[in-house]
């Protein structure tokens, strides 16, 4: 098995998808000759040619709208949006069309597309390059939202996303691209969508996280009896795994980078309140980004949940018996 980082694992996943299924097409801004600004598509253009891997004009709504048509026509588009902040320009196509084609056509057309995009903070980049707006997409019925957190699940979740018959937003935590390395199985495999993963076992607190903040959470709580759950898929999310853990621990901490108000943590907290409140020994706590526009590099560390904020919350929860 090769030791890969997240970007290499995604690259391998794309390569295998292109080999496996000639309906798969990879496109976006700078994905072909340049191999993507983070090199996620490096070498694919050389291997598969410009019919299958191509650069588009600079037009996000165009890229996604094109993918909707390709998908409805029976192909398997994997479109890249260069940074999540630029997907806002494509929200109309994502929400108005990709998410609703199946419903509007009463099943006659479907939209099996994947939109890959770098996501999240911690990389000291310019404005709009560090957005954590997963909750917007989770709120929209008809699309799935996936966030890998390790090279292994990045590859498996990507394959599952490409095979999925519905539109999938695949959010790649930019901070992790080159941070983590691990052995990744050579062959193509699936990490099923809609299933969470226990990233650390524990019995006193359930910590829910995803993407790059999961990595930070794991470092923060490694010496605590905390069960860390990596959601992997946010929409639909794995209620069973979460509720089983809450039943065991009775304490819940949710950590995310996005702003607190209306963040995806609110949905998790509400679900636990509805379906698991009898197990709770303590209030559900959230450690999140603040309700501010993601700041420029000099202030971004203040906004992202720090290890200390996570530890403080765990200790606060442990004071409840």
């Amino acid at each position, binding site marked *: 098995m090769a030791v890969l980082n997240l970007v290499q694992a995604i690259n391998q996943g794309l390569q295998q998808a292109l080999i496996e299924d000639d309906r798969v097409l990879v496109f976006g801004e700078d994905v072909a000759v340049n*191999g993507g600004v983070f090199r996620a598509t490096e070498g694919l253009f050389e291997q598969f040619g410009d019919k299958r891997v191509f650069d588009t004009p600079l037009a996000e709504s165009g890229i996604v709208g094109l993918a909707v048509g390709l998908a409805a026509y029976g192909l398997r588009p994997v479109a890249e949006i260069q940074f999540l902040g630029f997907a806002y320009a494509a929200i109309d196509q994502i929400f108005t069309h990709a998410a609703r084609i199946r419903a509007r056509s009463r099943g006659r057309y479907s939209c099996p597309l994947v939109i890959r995009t770098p996501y999240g903070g911690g990389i*000291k980049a310019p404005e709009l390059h560090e957005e954590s707006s997963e909750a917007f997409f989770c709120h929209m019925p008809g699309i799935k939202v996936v966030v890998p957190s390790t090279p292994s699940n990045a590859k498996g979740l990507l394959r599952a996303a490409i095979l999925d018959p519905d539109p999938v937003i695949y959010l790649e935590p930019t901070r992790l691209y080159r941070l983590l390395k691990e052995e990744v199985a050579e062959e193509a495999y699936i990490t099923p969508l809609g299933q969470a993963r226990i990233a650390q076992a524990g019995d006193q607190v359930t910590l829910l996280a995803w993407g790059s903040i999961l990595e930070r959470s794991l470092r923060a709580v490694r010496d605590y009896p905390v069960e860390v759950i990596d959601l992997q898929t946010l929409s639909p999310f794995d209620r069973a795994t979460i509720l089983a853990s809450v039943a065991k621990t009775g304490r819940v901490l949710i950590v995310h980078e996005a702003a607190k108000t209306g963040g995806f943590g609110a949905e998790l907290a509400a679900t636990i309140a509805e379906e698991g409140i009898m197990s709770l020994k303590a209030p559900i706590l959230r450690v999140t980004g603040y309700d501010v526009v993601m700041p*420029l590099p000099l202030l971004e560390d203040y906004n992202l949940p720090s290890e200390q904020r996570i530890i403080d919350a765990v200790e606060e929860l442990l004071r409840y018996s």
Partner: protein
Amino acid sequence: MPRETLANFSIERLEILDPRGEVDANLLPDLTDPQFLRLYELLLLTRLADERALNLQREGRLGTFPSSLGQEAAQVGSAFALAPQDWVFPSFRELGVFLCLESSLPNYYRYWMGDERGQLCPPELNLFPINIAVGTHLLHAAGVAMGARYRQEPLVAVPYLGDGGTSKGDFYEALNFAGVYRLPLVAICQNNQWAISVSRRGQTATETLAQKALACGIKGIQVDGNDVLAVYQATIEALKRARSGGGATFIECETYRMSDHTTADDARRYRDSAELESWREKDPLLRMRRFLEHRGLWIEADQQAQEQALLQRIDQAVEAAEAVSPPTVEEMFRYTCHQLSSRQEEQLKECRDGRA
């Protein structure tokens, strides 16, 4: 029932100053010798301030930076034509525009150092913040232009964009509004041939970018974007037309990005070095300098003295930018909304109390 041609169009290109420094005397803009000298000073200042930013980035004192190397004439030539009441909507590569408008260089550096306060616009300028999302600000310019027409103020809205920006839907929407409502808008496009790794040919199949204006019923013109006099002349004419109710113009300045896209990019991956070399002869500074020499306005000694003076100014700007104390977390919250919500108040307190 014949087939007939309903309309024919053509696109004009304007060149005044050639690479050898020769000018077409008939087309020479109505500028004084001190103004010609000032134009050259601004070109040089832009070049030197840009080089300094690249050096600061390499030293880790400044973040990702988009260089304007090679594009000085398109920036300075157009901004030099503006009137104080005009509203300017920069994209992210307009150092020369900021310098020409005499916006603060320390602030410009601070922005790219990652400090929000670098976006602060001096009260005497109508300068929008640097816009990172490509092409989205043209509609804001259209909005300001419409407001100006409504209030009958003689201002013109001037958005800047790149060749890549012309592919965005918002670009077409803005030009279309400008056409339908006959707005006082002058869009300045720096066609620097590349949008990161995608060439101008990969962006559009049209012969020129200027002709995109025709579909919206506004004027489009192409100018030699490395010719500061042609850019100035085209802009002055477009501004005049806009102010007199003649409607909008789209100006394509044909130029070249001599640097990488940003300091995070490596243009060698996608760009032929011969192409780069072929543009060196068209350097906008060199030809303006030759023009000044032909006119007897410039000698070698002037060049050195001026470079020294400008470098000193740049040194002071860097010093000023770095002397500012770092932003506090209040900066993060203060401008989110007019008033903080109770939750934001709590978050600010938590953040200030040093839990971060």
